[in-house]
Structures are given as structure tokens and as C-alpha cells.
């Protein structure tokens, strides 16, 4: 056999690396191209290396351009490195997929690389953006795998603020929320962005301001996130890559409940008592108003006696849930074509037993240079998602998370298996709407299935090197099936249970065309980059449902055939059909290299606006940037730019909202009935407008070893459409009026750098971002400025003593909570029974943080890398149903005061004399929980260690003899450490809905999870 190594001549090569000023440059890494061999320069910039005499050396160093140098038989090689001025010539994708030189942009954009999203994974990739981008805040519903994300850019943009528009490979994608929980319960049925496989994402670019997103016209109001998926590279060999990821979600008990008094209630004599019979155990529910726990044996719901001692093990109901993601990628490219195909399988288990999400993704990206002028590109992303038993949240029947409120001596295991021997739900309180958690998890079903194709076909024709025409067709179609089953034996049902199936199809079809010309009008002085185009967008949602009537005929047989009658029809609340025709232009004028003026305009014609109101809406933007570092070169300053922009956009109008319609209802014993919406139509509605001014300063120093970007913005909406409340006595419950106005002013700051770069190859690259947003609701309905009620939590759902609302003059959504009744001097007034009473509804603060951001750090040392992300949030409030329930149930430590002696509230009686009435603790605290809600409003600020990844890459030398060219192993963790929080019994991020109306309202969702995992990436040899 021939030893291949012997056929080349190895030589010892020495050399020195200097920077652009001739100073020695330590820490430069030098690798031998095509191999894994290499070294690093020492403190004097010197290196020594053993390499083949015909090798090519690659010199690379952060902040400098990489250089390739052929050895060519030499033994001494000196190299001068030139600053890469990274970012200076960086090209970013902007609106409509147009690539632009970042340095010339007159507005802020931020890009997050796929690497940051796909090692430590979230099933909904939007949740991974938390803490990474200035101006962007993320919330979730704590609903388990596949739950929706609430992404807000620059605060509560408008009354209807929601997720930004997601544009994938240039085509807007559907992000319809498929159903969320409200105060009455329900599950989170997911959104559109949750379908995307993080492994396929090359980058996400966040267009925060309206100038950046104005080219999306009617859909730009909430900002835009552009997703670019991975593609093959030209002239690359066929590559195979396999990535496997396993993560565990470990439930964390965030409660700090009292451990002194056990289950029980006041007995007939008005004295706290522990249960003495099964019936008393049941009637006292999970109320911890009993006596001091003394270890005696008391009857429990399983019919057995258990020690009256603390167990507090509700968290054991949940499981440490593993998730597995396996992705195989095949890619390659020739001179004329590229392709990339990925196949991915995700199996994410929920911490709630018997609940999981299963997602298979097929992603293909291919391009072909048909002629020297014509390029064709196809992207297709096919998703098959199957979700079993999405957890009930908030209040409500069928919600397993009721388990969080057990008296300290109640063992959650006594509730298992959730059924009695005769197959009925084992109820554990006298309120049958509190479903046994085991019954909810094991017998209820809330299942969804989705098949979805997101595809785009585009062709680009280059007439000359400065003129091209591009056409693109994008089609996003989802077919959903959802099945909800309330099983036989359900405690609150008087029949054998019921089921409902809903099928839906949601499509988004976009056709657009774009003509781009780049030309120099005056040579070396004035350049123009001009784009004009048009778009037709058709979106459609359609669906039907069938539900059983009268309960299953045959118990336990869960089929739609098993009913005496069925109710069925179109899912009218889902069905929409709309079209928007748009024309737009973008023109950039640059004078030399230091002054750029850009303007864009988009005209949208809506099918949803009445003709009488006007043909459509124009969204203009103008921005300018002055790159002063080009005019006056300064030492160490690579980039210095100030920018200023203005834009006006509008939002999307709802279909069918501007005319009077009648609908047929179900016939009653064959007699037809009809009605109409209680929403009063408004024929004159027009989408609201948002105006924004943004100014920024961006600087980069020393080859981008330090850089910052400061942005100031001020934005205001006009004529926001309010779904104003009406009293039924007017004949309607709501009406649309266009009088709302919201203002946001803020600062975004990002700073990054490479403070440490040692000779040994160690580098540290931190970045920090900070956002301050001041929101103010300027006007609501324009006449009386009534509050616009948003969400509420279940304990006070019907009488509105604790709600979130938009209140003119205050930041929204504002928590309004009933205070104690107080006299003129502020003393608490107690009634004649010594109980606190309900006082005024007072504003307690906004549910949206005022200050937020993150600190991201990357450390590299040879083949090791370590990254961690800390994020923080300040100035938001949480309306906590957990707090309310724990006071009402005697679990909160607050309720320990006065257990033995009775509670004498500190305050006065109605007549002004000091209150002296002593009340049993249960009576007092339950009245407190029922009447006073300011005590349930908590500070939601936190600092968290959000993510850690620690990786090692095995190189080719190590892997010689294996089929792999490299193997990367990373240990990953998410949400490992809450560094600071102010809430005692909950995680401050708890919530049950991604809807902004329910932001900051928590209770009855899954516990907080810590995630640990391992990610292994195999790259196969060609």
C-alpha cells in the first residue's frame, strides 16, 4: 500500500503577522486549507507551522479580512492583515427581499443568525428571539410544545398590537392564531410561526421601525421579521449533515406556600377543622383552612387515611419531558445550480403527561441559472404537525393545571388515576368544574393536526448588470384538523360527554413583480438605486365544524357517529376572504459614499374598505443617512453614521366589517330562525395610520472590535379602530369607531465588541442590548375616553374587579384592580363584620415592560465555544390569579397571620372608629380575596440566565478514519437560573395567552421549565 502522506513534502514554515499599521498581531489563527491543521500567532505575532510545501494557508482573525496565502515552497511567510471593517460592507436583506448595503440604511435593522436559534431549541422559534434584539419583546402562553408566541416590536404599537408580519424568503406567511385561552379557560392551539423548523433558518432580520417596514404597507404596523432559510452554495461539493438534539424540560415549583396549616374549613361551630370524613375532605376541596398539621391520619379523596403532614408535591404531577429533534441535510451546488434538502423530525413531550407535539419538516431550496441572465429559485417547506392533548390553561374545566392548588398535606398522588372504579371522574372538590388533573390529562383530548406547505417560486432576469426584473409567486396553505373531546364520566357533564371536530384551511397567495435599476447618474457623485413593483395578495380562511348533541349514546366510544344529533356548519368566526392590490416603489440616492437619501411608497387597494370611503391607502417613507466617517476619516473609526427617517403606515382591515348582514341560526323544531351580529357595523371605517420618526447614530471602531447603534423613535397612531362596548339596551354590544390613538417613544441601544482576543486563540465577544419604551394611550373613544377593557382573570371574571384595560393617559394595557375601601384619609374601612370591602378600581401599571434587553456573550477557545444569554425586563406588572387563589385557599403565607387568634384588620369602621372586630382567618382572607384585588398585582421584573451553550468541535484530524469531517457537540440549557425576580409564588413570565389583551395575566398554566440538552452535529466527508 501507498502511504499518501509520504507523497507530499512537509516543511516547517515560520512567519509573522502584522496589522495594517505594521504592529504585530497576536492571536491570529492560521489553518492549512482543506485540513484541520493549524496554529495561532504568539504575542509578537510570530508563528511556526508544519505544512505541505504546496499548501494554502488561511489567516483569519476577528475584525480582519481573512487571507489565503499559497506556501509555494517558501519557509518564511509574513502577512499584513487588513481590517475587515465588518459590517461596513455588510449586505442585509430589507423589505421585499431587496438586499442593501447596511452602512447606507437610514433606519435600524437587526439580524439574528440561525446558530443562535437552533442549538438550544424552542418548539416555537419566535420564543428564541427573547433578549436578542433591541426593541423586541417576547411572551408565551406557557401552554406546552407548539404554543404561540407574543412578539411585540417597540411596545404596544396600537390597541390591536400583535405579532409582526413574518416574511419567509420574500413571501409573507400566514401566522393566524388558532385559538387561545381566555379567562374562562381553553387551550393554546398554536400560531403560524410555530411551524418553522429552527434548523432550516439561516437568519432572521428584524425590521423594527416603520421606515424599515413601510414597503409592506398595510401589514407593516407591528413590524416585520424576515426569515431567510438555508440554501446550498455554488461550487460546493455534495454535503451531508446530521444534527441530533435531545432536551429535557424539567418542571420547577415556583410556589412558596405555607406549610403549617393543612386541609380543612371552618366547621359548623365556626372553628377551623381538619377533615374527619371523606365527605368533609371533598367539601373542603383544596382549601388549607384546617388546623396545624399534626401528623394525625385524615381521610383523603382516595378513600384512605393519610398523615396530616406537609407533602406539597403538586409538581410531581408533571414529568421531566424529553424532546428529540433529528435533522438530516443534503446540500450541494455546481456552477449553475444549488440545492439544499433537509428532513427533520421533532418529538416534543409536554410536562403534562400524555401530551406531545410531533412535527416533521421537509425543506427544499433549489436554484438554477437557466441562462446567464435568468435565474430560477424554488423554496418549498412542507410541515406535518400532530399535537396530542394541548393542555387546558387559565381557569376552566379540563385544565390539569388545577393541580397547583392543593392543600399542603394533600398528596397529588391521591388524585390518580383520576377515575373511580366505575369509570367516572374522581372529583376532589365539591365544584365539579375543577377537573381532576389526572382525568384532564388522561381522558380529555384537545388534538390538532396540521399539514402545511409554504412555497415560493421566483425568477430573476438580469437585462444588464444594472437592471433586473424579478417575478415571484408565494403560496402558503395550511390544512388543520382539530378534535376536542370531553370524555364520558366528566364530573361537570350531566351526559356521556361530547366531542367537536373542526377542519380549516388557511391560504395566503402572493404574486409580486419587481424591477430594479442601479445606475450612476453623475459619475462618482450621484448614484441611484430604484425599484418599482406590484403585489397581489389573496388571503382566505375557510372551515367547518361538527359537534355532537346530547352526549355520546354509547359511553366511552368517542366518535361523531355516536350521537343522536349533531350540530354542524361553517366556522363563521374564522371564514374570511380578502384581497389587496398594491403598487410600490423604492428609490435610493447616494451622493458619493457619505450621503444617502431613500424614499419608498406603497399604495394598497383593499377589498375590505368600502369604495365610498376611498380607493386605498398610501404608505410613504423617507430616510436619510450621513456617513460622516467617509467625509472625514478619523483614526480608529471605521464607521460613523447618523440617520433620520419618517414613515407612515396603516394596518390591515378586517373582512366583512362594513355592512349589515343577517345570518340563519339553527332551526328550532323545524322552525327557521335568523339573527345578526351584535357588533354594529360601520360603513365608513378605514384602517388606522401609524406615523413614526426615527433617528440613529451608529459607530464602529478598530475593525469592529467595538461598535454601537443608538436609535431614538417616536410613533403615534391615529384613528385606531376601537371595538367599543355598547350596552345591550342599544340593541348591540359593540361598535367599531375609529378614534383611538396610541403613542410610543423609546430608545434602543446595542453595543458589541471583542474586548479580549488573546494569543492563545481565546476570544470573548459580548453584545448588550437595551430598550426603553414609554407607552401612552392618548385617546380611546374620543368622546368620553372610556376605558377599553382587555382581559381579566377568572376569579373576578364577571364583575370586573381586576382587569387589564386601555386607559387614556396611561400606558397600556393597564391593570385596574379594586383596592380596599378607604376613607378620606386613606384608612382601610372594614364593615361591621370586620371584613375588608371593595373600594375603587385603581391603575396598577402596565403589563408590558418599560425596559428590557439582553446580554449575549460568546467565548471561543480553539475548538471550544461557550455562549450565554442573560435577559432582563423591568417595569411591568402581573395580575396573578395564583396569588388570588392562594389567598382564597389559605395557601399563601400571607394567610398565616391570625390563624389562631383571628384577624383584626388594621383600619376603621364605617363610622371612623378603629376596627376591633376579630374574624376567623378563613372568613377574613376569603373576603380579602373576593373583595380586594390590588394584592394580586405583582412586579413582573426579572433578570434571567436565558440560555447557555457549551460546545466542542472535533476536527478532521481527530476524525481521520471516520466518515465525518467534523462533529460538533454542544451542551445546551435554557431558563437555568432566575437571577432576580420579585414574585413569590410564580415565575414572573407566567401567562396563559399570547394575546396582548391577556398579557400579564397569569394563572392555571404549565409550571416554569428549565431545559437541559445536548446537540450533536455530524458533517460527513464528501
Amino acid at each position, binding site marked *: 500500500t501507498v502511504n499518501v502522506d509520504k507523497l507530499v513534502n512537509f516543511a516547517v514554515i515560520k512567519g509573522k503577522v502584522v496589522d495594517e499599521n505594521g504592529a504585530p498581531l497576536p492571536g491570529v489563527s492560521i489553518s492549512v486549507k482543506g485540513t484541520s491543521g493549524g496554529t495561532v500567532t504568539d504575542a509578537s505575532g510570530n508563528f511556526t507551522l508544519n505544512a505541505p510545501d504546496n499548501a494554502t494557508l488561511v489567516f483569519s482573525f476577528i475584525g480582519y479580512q481573512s487571507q489565503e496565502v499559497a506556501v509555494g515552497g517558501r519557509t518564511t511567510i509574513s502577512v499584513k492583515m487588513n481590517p475587515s471593517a465588518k459590517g461596513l460592507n455588510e449586505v442585509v436583506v430589507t423589505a421585499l427581499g431587496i438586499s442593501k448595503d447596511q452602512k447606507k440604511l437610514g433606519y435600524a435593522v437587526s439580524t439574528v443568525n440561525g446558530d443562535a436559534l437552533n442549538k438550544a431549541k424552542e418548539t416555537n422559534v419566535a420564543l428564541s428571539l427573547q433578549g436578542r434584539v433591541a426593541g423586541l419583546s417576547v411572551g408565551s402562553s406557557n401552554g406546552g410544545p407548539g404554543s404561540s408566541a407574543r412578539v411585540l416590536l417597540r411596545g404596544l404599537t396600537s390597541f390591536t398590537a400583535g405579532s409582526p408580519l413574518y416574511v419567509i424568503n420574500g413571501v409573507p406567511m400566514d401566522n393566524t392564531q388558532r385559538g387561545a385561552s381566555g379567562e374562562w379557560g381553553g387551550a393554546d392551539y398554536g400560531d403560524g410561526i410555530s411551524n418553522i423548523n429552527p434548523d432550516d433558518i439561516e437568519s432572521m432580520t428584524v425590521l423594527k421601525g416603520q421606515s424599515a417596514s413601510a414597503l409592506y404597507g398595510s401589514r407593516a404596523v407591528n413590524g416585520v421579521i424576515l426569515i431567510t432559510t438555508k440554501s446550498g452554495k455554488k461550487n460546493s461539493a455534495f454535503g451531508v449533515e446530521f444534527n441530533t438534539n435531545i432536551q429535557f424540560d424539567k418542571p420547577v415549583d415556583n410556589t412558596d406556600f405555607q406549610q403549617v396549616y393543612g386541609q380543612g374549613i371552618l366547621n359548623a361551630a365556626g372553628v377551623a377543622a381538619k377533615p374527619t370524613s371523606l365527605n368533609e375532605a371533598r367539601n373542603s376541596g383544596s382549601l388549607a383552612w384546617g388546623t396545624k398539621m399534626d401528623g394525625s391520619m385524615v381521610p383523603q379523596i382516595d*378513600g384512605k387515611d393519610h398523615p396530616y403532614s406537609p407533602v406539597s408535591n403538586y409538581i410531581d404531577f408533571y414529568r421531566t419531558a424529553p424532546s428529540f429533534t433529528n435533522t438530516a441535510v443534503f446540500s450541494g451546488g455546481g456552477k449553475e445550480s444549488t440545492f439544499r434538502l433537509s428532513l427533520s423530525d421533532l418529538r416534543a413531550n409536554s410536562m403534562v403527561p400524555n401530551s406531545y407535539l410531533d412535527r416533521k419538516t421537509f425543506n427544499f431550496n433549489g436554484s438554477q441559472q437557466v441562462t446567464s441572465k435568468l435565474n430560477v429559485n424554488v423554496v418549498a417547506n412542507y410541515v406535518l404537525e400532530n399535537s396530542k392533548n394541548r393542555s387546558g390553561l387559565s381557569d376552566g374545566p379540563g385544565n390539569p393545571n388545577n393541580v397547583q392548588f392543593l392543600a399542603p398535606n394533600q398528596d397529588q398522588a391521591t388524585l390518580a388515576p383520576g377515575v373511580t372504579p366505575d369509570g367516572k371522574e374522581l372529583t376532589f372538590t365539591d365544584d365539579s368544574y375543577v377537573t381532576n388533573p389526572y382525568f384532564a390529562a388522561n381522558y380529555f383530548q384537545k388534538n390538532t393536526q396540521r399539514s402545511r406547505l409554504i412555497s415560493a417560486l421566483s425568477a430573476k432576469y438580469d437585462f444588464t448588470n444594472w437592471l433586473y426584473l424579478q417575478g415571484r409567486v408565494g403560496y402558503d396553505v395550511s390544512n388543520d384538523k382539530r378534535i376536542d373531546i370531553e370524555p364520558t364520566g366528566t364530573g*361537570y357533564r350531566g351526559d356521556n360527554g361530547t366531542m367537536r371536530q373542526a377542519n380549516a384551511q388557511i391560504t395566503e397567495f402572493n404574486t409580486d413583480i419587481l424591477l430594479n435599476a442601479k445606475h450612476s447618474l453623475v459619475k462618482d457623485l450621484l448614484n441611484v438605486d430604484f425599484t418599482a413593483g406590484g403585489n397581489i395578495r389573496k388571503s382566505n380562511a375557510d372551515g367547518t365544524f361538527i359537534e355532537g348533541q346530547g352526549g355520546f349514546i354509547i359511553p366511552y366510544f368517542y366518535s361523531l357517529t355516536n350521537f343522536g344529533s349533531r350540530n354542524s356548519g361553517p366556522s363563521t368566526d374564522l371564514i374570511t376572504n380578502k384581497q389587496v392590490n398594491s403598487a410600490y416603489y423604492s428609490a435610493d440616492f447616494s451622493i458619493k459614499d457619505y450621503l444617502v437619501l431613500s424614499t419608498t411608497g406603497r399604495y394598497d387597494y383593499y377589498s375590505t374598505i368600502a369604495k365610498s370611503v376611498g380607493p386605498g391607502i398610501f404608505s410613504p417613507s423617507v430616510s436619510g443617512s450621513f456617513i460622516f466617517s467617509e467625509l472625514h476619516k478619523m483614526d480608529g473609526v471605521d464607521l460613523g453614521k447618523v440617520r433620520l427617517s419618517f414613515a407612515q403606515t396603516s394596518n390591515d382591515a378586517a*373582512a366583512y366589517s362594513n355592512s349589515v348582514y343577517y345570518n340563519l341560526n339553527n332551526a328550532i323544531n323545524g322552525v327557521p330562525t335568523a339573527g345578526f351580529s351584535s357588533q354594529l357595523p360601520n360603513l365608513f371605517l378605514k384602517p388606522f395610520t401609524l406615523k413614526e420618526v426615527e433617528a440613529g447614530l451608529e459607530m464602529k471602531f478598530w475593525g469592529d472590535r467595538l461598535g454601537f447603534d443608538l436609535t431614538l423613535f417616536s410613533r403615534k397612531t391615529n384613528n385606531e379602530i376601537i371595538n367599543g362596548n355598547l350596552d345591550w339596551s*342599544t340593541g348591540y354590544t359593540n361598535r367599531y369607531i375609529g378614534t383611538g390613538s396610541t403613542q410610543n417613544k423609546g430608545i434602543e441601544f446595542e453595543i458589541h465588541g471583542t474586548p479580549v482576543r488573546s494569543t492563545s486563540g481565546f476570544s470573548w465577544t459580548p453584545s448588550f442590548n437595551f430598550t426603553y419604551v414609554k407607552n401612552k394611550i392618548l385617546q380611546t373613544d374620543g368622546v368620553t375616553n372610556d376605558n377599553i377593557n382587555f382581559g381579566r382573570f377568572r376569579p373576578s371574571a364577571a364583575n370586573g374587579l381586576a382587569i387589564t384595560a386601555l386607559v387614556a393617559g396611561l400606558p397600556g394595557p393597564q391593570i385596574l384592580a379594586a383596592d380596599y375601601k378607604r376613607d378620606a384619609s386613606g384608612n382601610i374601612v372594614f364593615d361591621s363584620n370586620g371584613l375588608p370591602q371593595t373600594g375603587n378600581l385603581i391603575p396598577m401599571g402596565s403589563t408590558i415592560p418599560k425596559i428590557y434587553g439582553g446580554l449575549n456573550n460568546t467565548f471561543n477557545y480553539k475548538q471550544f465555544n461557550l455562549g450565554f444569554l442573560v435577559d432582563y425586563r423591568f417595569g411591568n406588572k402581573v395580575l396573578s390569579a395564583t396569588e388570588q387563589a392562594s389567598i382564597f385557599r389559605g395557601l399563601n403565607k400571607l394567610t398565616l397571620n391570625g390563624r389562631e387568634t383571628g384577624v383584626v384588620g388594621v383600619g376603621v369602621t364605617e363610622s371612623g372608629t378603629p376596627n376591633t372586630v376579630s374574624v376567623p382567618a378563613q372568613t377574613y382572607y376569603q373576603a380579602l380575596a373576593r373583595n380586594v384585588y390590588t394584592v394580586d398585582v405583582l412586579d413582573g421584573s426579572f433578570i434571567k440566565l436565558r440560555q447557555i451553550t457549551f460546545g466542542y468541535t472535533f476536527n478532521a484530524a481527530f476524525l481521520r478514519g471516520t466518515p465525518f469531517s467534523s462533529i460538533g457537540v454542544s451542551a445546551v440549557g435554557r431558563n437555568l437560573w432566575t437571577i432576580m425576580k420579585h414574585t413569590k409564588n410564580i415565575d414572573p413570565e407566567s401567562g396563559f395567552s399570547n394575546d396582548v389583551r391577556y398579557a400579564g395575566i397569569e394563572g392555571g398554566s404549565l409550571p416554569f421549565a428549565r431545559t437541559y440538552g445536548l446537540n450533536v452535529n455530524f458533517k460527513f466527508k464528501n
Partner: protein
Amino acid sequence: CTKNFEAINTDPNKTTGNLINPNYFLSQSQITFSQTGYDQLLFQSEWMQSLASTFSYYYNGDKYVFGGAGSGYFSYPWNRTYSALTLIVEMQALIKDKPEYTNLNACATILRVMEVQRLTDLYGDVPYSEAGLAKSGNFTPKYDAQQAIYADMLAQLDAATAALDASKVGPTADLFYKGDVSKWKRLGYSMMLKLGMRLVKVDPATAKTYAEKAFAGGTMSSIADDAKVMADPANATSSNSDVMRTPDDFREVRWGKTLIDYMKSKNDPRIPAIAEIAIGNGLAANQNQTAGDNTASLQQGMPNGYTISSIANAPGYPGATPAASATDAPAPLGKYSRPRFQVYADRGSANYIYTYGESELLLAEAASRGWNTGVAATHFANALTADMKTLAGYNATPIATVSDAAIATYVAANPLNPATALQQINLEYWVTTSATFNYNETFANWRRSGFPVLTPVVFPGQYITGQVPRRMPYPTSQLQQNGANYNAAVQRQGADNFATRVWWDK
């Protein structure tokens, strides 16, 4: 390419005024109005001591203490009734000046009067002349004084009953009478009678005028004239049965001691038709949704004002039924009578609004007052017979039946005695409206007549003490949504609480 925008922006599942059949709004208004459920069960049924319960949200009516959503329930009858009313407003706008709809229009007016009467009887001054006009831009309707509302409603009934013409086509989607115009006419006059009789305390002269006018016009003449809607089991349109099928309610809602004691004292043959006791022991049996034991002698009503714990201290407490097994628990309320499951939890049962029997009782009272409405004793006997026979109409297949022989015996044993006529008549009104779960009417007639004489419940933390409530407060949202008009109404009528009496109750 914006040509078809109008077509795109047309909801495929809705239609317009040109195509809709306005009759369908009548049927929708009828079914909406007839479904009362919690609107009346949480407060009125227990204020009247017809029902009793120890369960949380029934604290509202049983103990005059807020439970469950408490004051949130004030809005239930308000919202339901106005949502029924808006259908009529819309429909009457659609058929305006269309002679082919004369009868539909008159029927709609009668239904509208029925709806408004329930509202104003419960709350007092309410939006009336300006109600349902959001479409024409009135978002804050003024509250009309109850006196003016009654005057207008009586005038409307006059006109509507006169306009009904049996020779023309009747309403084609009619859940009361299948379009029988002559029955509508009799309902119109019976409504005139009911409105008139509400005024006996405050304006006896007007009461007399209209009672006599109604009698002359021709009131309901048999139980076939009963105004009711048969619920559709396929569409869950009986909210009373929905409540009674709910395990928590079924387990803990019982007939009231006051009612059952009275009926037993009269040997009322309706007891086994409406009441039963769970068969078997323990919680499981008590929750078991099957027929119980309806033997009359076993029936026992539960007193109001007790909790699940304190009920053991109630006078005459029959004791809990013991646990049936080791995993079962005793049922503290197991030996009290509950509304019969097969009757009241039937998803196809009747939603009663106004019966021939009630109409006859009102005529009997008018005649007893010496007004020209026929012979009091005859009307009373008619009413007793009708009230018992009406129960058979509660279910599609009669379950709550009383035999003709038993009826005859009872009628013979209970002749109208002029000295006690008002008491006899109005206690029967209480029994019959309780048996038909028509507690809005029970509550109104009690305030009007003073019968039955009720002892208010005593319990800590009550929203009203020392008396039975006489009014439902306005929905708590009124101050915010219609503040100026709300304040004007409170100024005129008195404090917005449970004690303030409506105009005709002075």
C-alpha cells in the same frame, strides 16, 4: 383587477335585507326571550322560596349574599331581554310600510311588550323609547319612567290586538302558535290583562279599565293558548334544563320548604308531578341523573338560608343519606325533594312564558275586585284545572301529569272564597309559576299581590337585610356605559339597590 372586490368582501354565510325572511327574527326573538335559566334561578326562584340551594352561586338568591359572579348576574335578564328586543326592532324596520306583514308586525309588537314588561318589572325605569337604536346613532338611550312605559305598552297592545286580522297570513316562523293569528289575538288581550293587573296598587282605575277591556276583547281560552316555546333537544335551547343537567346544580338545588309545605297543606296533586327524592344512598346516588322516588308523602322541601354544613341544624332536617360504599360520601341534601329530573332536565321541555291558567287567575282577581271580568269562582276553577293540565305540556311526551280525577277533587276542595279570594288566587299563581319555572313572573306577582307572605332569610353578610328583595339592581356596567341616563333614572326612582320599589310596587 379591483372589479370583484365587492364580491370578495361579501360574507358567504350571511345575507342581506332583500333576501332575509323577516319572520325568522320573530322566532329567534321568541326562543331567546324564553330561555331564562340562570337569569331567574340564581335570584328570583329563591327569593320566592320556591327553590333552595346550599351551592356557591345560589348564595345570591338563597341567602341574599353574593356568590359566584355575584353582581355580575344583575345583567343576565337585562342582556337577554334586550338581545331579544333588538331582533324585533330590526325586523319592524325591515317590514315597515309593507302591508303583507301586518299580522307579523302586530305579533312582534305583542312579543315586544312581553319582553319589555319583564325588564321594567325587574329593574323599574329602563331604556324603552330609545332602546335598540344604536343603528341610528343613539348609543346612550335614556331611561323611561316605568309609568310612561306602561302607558305606552298598553296603547301598543290596543293597536296591535286591533290590527291582527285572522283573514290575512300570519307569522310564518312562530314558535308560540305556528302562525295562528286568533291565538295571538287572545295572547294580546291576556297581555293587556296582565299589564293592567300589575297596576292594581298604584293605579286601580287604569287597571280596571284595561282588565275589563281585555276580558271584553277575549283572553286566552284554553291551555292550547299557553305562550310557550318547546325547546329543541338537538339545539340545547332549554336553558332551564341545561341548568338542571349540570351536576353541581342537580346535586344541590332543591324545592323550597315554603313551597312544598304549602302544597302539602293543600294536598296538592301536583307534588308527585314536580318533585322527587333521589333513590339510594350517598353522594353517588344523589348525583345520579335518573328518576327518583316521587311518592307525594315522602317529599320534603329544603329551607332557605342554610349552608351544606349548617343544614344539619335546620328544623326538621331529615338527615343525610349515608355513604353507599367506602369511596362514597354521605349526601347531606339527599333526602330533600328536587325538581323531577325527567321533567325539568328534559332538553325538549317547554319554556313557559304565560299560561291560560295565569290569565284566568288574573281575571278571577279582577272579578273579585268587583270589576266586569266574569265570575271569579269560575275563572279560579278554570285556572286550577288549567294549571294542573299545563304540566302535561312541559314535555313532548307528558311526564308531569295529574289525573282528571285528582284535578276534579282538588278543584272541588278549593272553591274560591270571596273573603280569602286574593290570597287563594295569588298563592296559586305562586305555585303554578314555580312549577313552570317562570320565576320572573312569580317575583313580579308576589310584589304586586303580597302573596305568599314570606319570612326573609337571615345570614351573615347579606346585601339586603330584614326584607325580601323587591328589585334587581341595574347591570354594574350602566354607570360607565350610560352614566348620565343611569344617574337620572336613579335620581327619579331611588337608590339602585335591592330594596327600592318600582313604580307599580309603591
